[in-house]
Structure formats: C-alpha cells, structure tokens
C-alpha cells in the first residue's frame, strides 16, 4: 500500500514538474514571438502589397526569362527586346533606345528614370502568391534588400512610382499610392511577415 502511495506521489510530482517547465518555456518564449494580432495585421497589409506586385505595371519588367512583357494584357515585348547582359537591353537596342526619363505622349512610349528590367534573380512572372511572398523577402532574390530597404524601394523609387502615372492605355495598380504606402508601413511595423 505504501509502495502504491509513493508511486502515485511520484507521478503527480512528475506531472506538476513537467507542466511547470512547459509553462516556464512558454513564458520565456513570449518576448521572442510577434504577437498574433500584429502578425495578422502584417499579413493583411501584405495582401494589399501583393495586389500591386501582381499588377502588369510591376510584373511586366520582372520577367523570369529574358524578355519583358508589355501592356495590360502582358504580351511579350515586341521589337525583339531582350534582357541583355546588364538588364537594359542588347548591344544595339537598349531600353533607352525608346524609353526615356518620362512618358512620351507623342509616341505613347512609357518612360521613367533608370528604365530597365529587374535582374533575373528577381523574376516574378509565373510565381504563386506564396512563392512571390517568399521571394520578396529572400535577400538572394530581392537584390539583397532588408524589409526596410524593400519598403523604401517600393514606396519611393522613381521607376516604381511610375506605375501610378503610366500614361494613356496602361492601367495603374489596383491599390492607390497612399494606401500602398500605408500598407508598406503596416507590413513593416508589424514584423514584415509573408504567408508561409
């Protein structure tokens, strides 16, 4: 009888100790984990960002191959345009052969500073939402940018901002620029989460 009592006491003690350890571990982990609510805010903001990234205005010059797309229908760029060695066209025809610092309303050729393709490592065409989110925060696929760098690039770069002033016949992204910038800040300030 005394043996049974001793065994029961040991079992209860063990369970209490294990439970305490789990509780302690959980309490210690809290400061390292972004609060659930903030993460949700970040992920919700990312959905707005995603709408912009998937717009033809961004996607056309982030090809996964060597030929950019053009137009709202995202057809392959005409005139035999290709990436070239420096992402700015070939040896004869470069991007600036036709594209200049601003939209050309005579010829309706779009233009903005440093017009060119995103590097091949930053190719987005053909990626799922999940893949695009992961690629966006992967320094091997985003030009070595931190989340802060990304927010600066997407919210301030003159070529990115052209998307909201694309000229006749080209549809701007579905999220207005002020809302996009707000979403960038919301995303960053709540942990810069992407869907996993």
């Amino acid at each position: 009888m005394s043996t049974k009592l001793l065994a029961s006491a040991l079992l209860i003690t063990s369970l209490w100790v294990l439970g305490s350890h789990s509780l302690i571990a959980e309490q210690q982990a809290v400061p390292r984990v972004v609060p659930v609510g903030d993460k949700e805010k970040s992920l919700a903001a990312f959905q707005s960002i995603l709408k912009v990234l998937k717009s033809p205005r961004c996607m056309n010059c982030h090809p996964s191959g060597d030929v950019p797309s053009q137009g709202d229908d995202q057809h392959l760029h005409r005139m035999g345009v290709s990436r070239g060695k420096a992402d700015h066209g070939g040896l004869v025809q470069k991007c600036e052969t036709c594209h200049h610092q601003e939209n050309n309303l005579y010829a309706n050729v779009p233009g903005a500073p440093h017009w060119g393709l995103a590097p091949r490592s930053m190719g987005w065409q053909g990626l799922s939402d999940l893949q695009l989110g992961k690629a966006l925060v992967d320094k091997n696929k985003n030009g070595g940018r931190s989340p802060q760098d990304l927010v600066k690039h997407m919210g301030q770069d003159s070529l990115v901002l052209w998307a909201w002033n694309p000229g006749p016949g080209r549809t701007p992204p579905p999220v207005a620029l002020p809302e996009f910038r707000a979403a960038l800040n919301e995303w960053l300030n709540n942990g810069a989460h992407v869907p996993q």
Partner: protein
Amino acid sequence: MKIDFSINKKPVSVDVDPEMPLLWVVRDELQLKATKFGCGRAMCGACTLHVDGEVYRSCALPVQYAAGKEVTTLEGLSTETQIHPIQQAWIEEEVPQCGYCQPGFMMAAAKLIQEIPNPSDEDIKSNISNICRCGTHPRIIKAIKRAAAIQQASKI
C-alpha cells in the same frame, strides 16, 4: 526654347519646343531628309539615328535629350573621303527595294558591326528589329556581313 547640339559633326542651334521629336527637328528644321517617319511609335525603326554613338528611335526622342550631344544621321555616316562600310555593302548587295526604311536599317547596322565585328545571322536578327515591308531582310543580312568584312579588311 533654344537647344544647341552637334549634327554630323557640325554645331547647330534650334529654337523649338523641347518636346518636339528629334526626327522633326532633323528633317524640318535642319533639312536632313534621310531619317524617315514610319510608325511614329518607336516600333518600325525608320527614324533610327545615333546620339553620342547610341541608337535611338528619333520619333520618340524629344529634342531636349540631344542638347549638348553629337547626333549622327545617315548623311553623316561617311567622312568626306571615306564611304562607310555599311554604305558600300548596301550598294554592292543592291539592298534597297522601295528604300524608305533603309536609312534606319543602315544606322542600326552601323552600330551592330561596331559592337559585334563579325556578326552571325542570329546576332543580326536578335539585335536589329527594324521593319522592311518590301522584305529585303535576306539582302540586309548579306550586306551586314559584307560590311563587317570590309570593316575588318580596312583595319588590317
């Protein structure tokens, strides 16, 4: 607005809208008629010329971009004593049919053999997107290769 630049190695000054396409400045203000208007959308290449040695579609290039730079049209491709290899090859291969698009092709081709001294068919096709509706492309390819050979021979 007054804009100064050099055309075919001669300094010029024009007083025009800075947004005016360089094509119309060259043709109507400077009376150099080799450079042609084709599509007006930077697509066909008939208006191709050089600015500081780079190829541009002049129908889509506001003249303000030429300020202080060296513009070269087909009229300036040769020197007073030396015909350009592209011009010589074009004559020898009897390339043009109607001829309208040829100045643009020749300016693009001149840049091509400068960048790729011995171009393959693929080099030519992938680097020149000009359009010829007479279909002279096979003769153009032959002429570019001949021009490249002339250029190389002249350097020996």
